[in-house]
């Protein structure tokens, strides 16, 4: 059984079906790229998985548990982490502090009042290294570059210990070198965490994607490797218009 299973998922926005009978399986440790023209329903799909939007019908199963109608924070506790297009880090806290906050496995007051933050844990060191922010640990998030902010947010999801990372256009607005570095980060995470990433940058997709699913008008148009997709005539026509 796949770690994430989506069955006949549909959401109806007042007559308009942004996602329409979608079926999707993602294996544990897999990195899936979602492609598709604007308005294809990619962001909405991520919304449905993380709980930002409730579906009209269909089912979302994660790690064997049906999470279709759970509120967002409960899904987060199941290990579903969402990275939004607009980063939501705490700007006036340092990198390290942001990451410590994200480690919220014990969120109670009493557990946290006696905890003094001395040295970062090994796990945290490893996460900072993975995203390349080890040297920025004492920098306020507001002073990070755009790329670093995005990496910090990815690191927060890792620190939160989520098993499934949902990323919506993580490289938007990044410089070429930042995009490359982001690809390298995802490469490192591949196999360790399950990742679903929406991306337009084909260079990036070529680098990271093992499997690609193309959405069109809310359902799956094509699925396969980068080669299959690039040579698929239906995909071409969907992108170029009808």
């Amino acid at each position, binding site marked *: 059984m796949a770690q994430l299973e989506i069955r006949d998922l549909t959401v109806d926005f007042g007559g308009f079906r942004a996602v329409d009978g979608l079926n999707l399986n993602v294996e544990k440790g897999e990195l899936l790229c979602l492609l598709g023209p604007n308005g294809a329903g990619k962001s909405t799909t991520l919304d449905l998985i993380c709980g930002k939007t409730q579906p009209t019908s269909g089912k979302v199963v994660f790690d064997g548990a049906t999470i279709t109608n759970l509120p*967002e*924070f409960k899904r987060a506790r199941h290990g579903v982490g969402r990275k939004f297009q607009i980063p939501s880090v705490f700007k*006036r806290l340092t990198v390290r502090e942001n990451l410590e906050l994200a480690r*919220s496995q014990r969120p109670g007051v009493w557990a946290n*009042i006696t905890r003094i933050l001395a040295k970062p844990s090994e796990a945290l060191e490893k996460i900072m290294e993975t995203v390349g922010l080890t040297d920025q640990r004492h*920098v306020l998030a507001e002073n990070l570059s755009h790329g670093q902010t995005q990496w910090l947010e990815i690191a927060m999801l890792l620190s939160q210990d989520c098993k499934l990372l949902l990323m919506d256009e993580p490289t938007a607005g990044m410089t070429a070198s930042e995009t490359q570095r982001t690809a390298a980060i995802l490469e490192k995470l591949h196999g360790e965490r399950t990742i679903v990433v929406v991306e337009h940058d084909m260079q990036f997709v070529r680098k990271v994607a093992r499997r690609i699913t193309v959405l069109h008008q809310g359902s799956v148009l094509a699925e396969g490797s980068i080669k299959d997709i690039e040579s698929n005539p239906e995909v071409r026509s969907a992108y170029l218009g009808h």
Partner: protein
Amino acid sequence: MTSTLRNDFLSIAAFAALIVLAVPLFFGFDGYELNTFARYLCLGMVAMALALSWGTAGILNLGQAAPFGLGAYIMAMHLKLMNSTSMPGGMPDFMGWMNIETLPWFWQPFHSLGFTLLAGLLFPAAMAFAIGAFIFKGRVSGVFVAIITLAVLVAIQLLFVEEQGYTGGQNGLTGLALLTIFGVTIDNYSLNFYYLVAASLLIVTVLATMLSRSKAGLVLRAVREDPNRARFLGYDVSNYEILVFSVSAAIAGFAGMLYTLVLQFASPTYMSVSFSLSIVIWCAVGGRESLIGAAIGAIVVNMLEGRLSDVFVEAWLMVLGVLFIAIVLFLPRGLYGLAVSVLDAMRSQDKARHGTTAKTGEPTRPGESASTSPTASLSAGE
């Protein structure tokens, strides 16, 4: 030790040196002279209490004088009883004037010093807990918190003024005994008394710093910035807000108890709106992001008041108002922020002089002058 912890340590040490050594030295170790300064330290403590909730968690409590006043009255009740033993029924004099027959039940336990000391901390805290639960569970925020806390303050002060038979009304509680603890009577004009107050302030400083440096303190700083995001990370934000609100009230209560010891009376003016707003001003002047900064703000403004109110008499409140506006406009981070900028500027000049290849060491956040500046140390609160 991380650099933040080291900075905390250094700044607390510097603050300790200031109030334990420098100040007594300046006053020639004269207990009589130091009594005034002990008063400033109490006000510093209540400013620190406000900085804990306002600076750390962004909760602007305009009623901080309420827990302070409660603490002051609680201590005064004990001292009043100690001075009334020869009166009929052991009753305070003013009760007799109001034709009260017997000592009211809620005065009885204050014969015990242990009870009094606990009550001075826990009663304000419990009250803050109840009000905080109402405010924060109801997700009230921002200016409405300020309005509610101010309203509660006004109500409490009114109660104390109206219930003359039980509280001494407008006159407050006067004619108090000196505090006797473990058989030792403490003279409020003695050097030892000054050290008692200074040590109290230092203990509070250490505990409050530990709270703000704990993970709970980190959560509070996150709440100040974006409560919703903090909720998404799984934190029940209201519990953290109630916690800091209550702890802050307990500290204010402690400060109030000491204040009664310093002045030897408790008055409803301790719970006046103008006094409560003054606390906000001290905090702003010192810099609410820093606990020690806020305390120093209170000390500095009150020293100025001591000097200038003779000159300006009636106009002093206006001077204070103008000072507040000036600080908000020109020094939004207060004296603490000013100190940080100055130290930063000095450091970068230093670097320029010693060539840029000098070791950069651990990267520090901007606005913090590495580990060498004690005053910069609490800046993680920003």
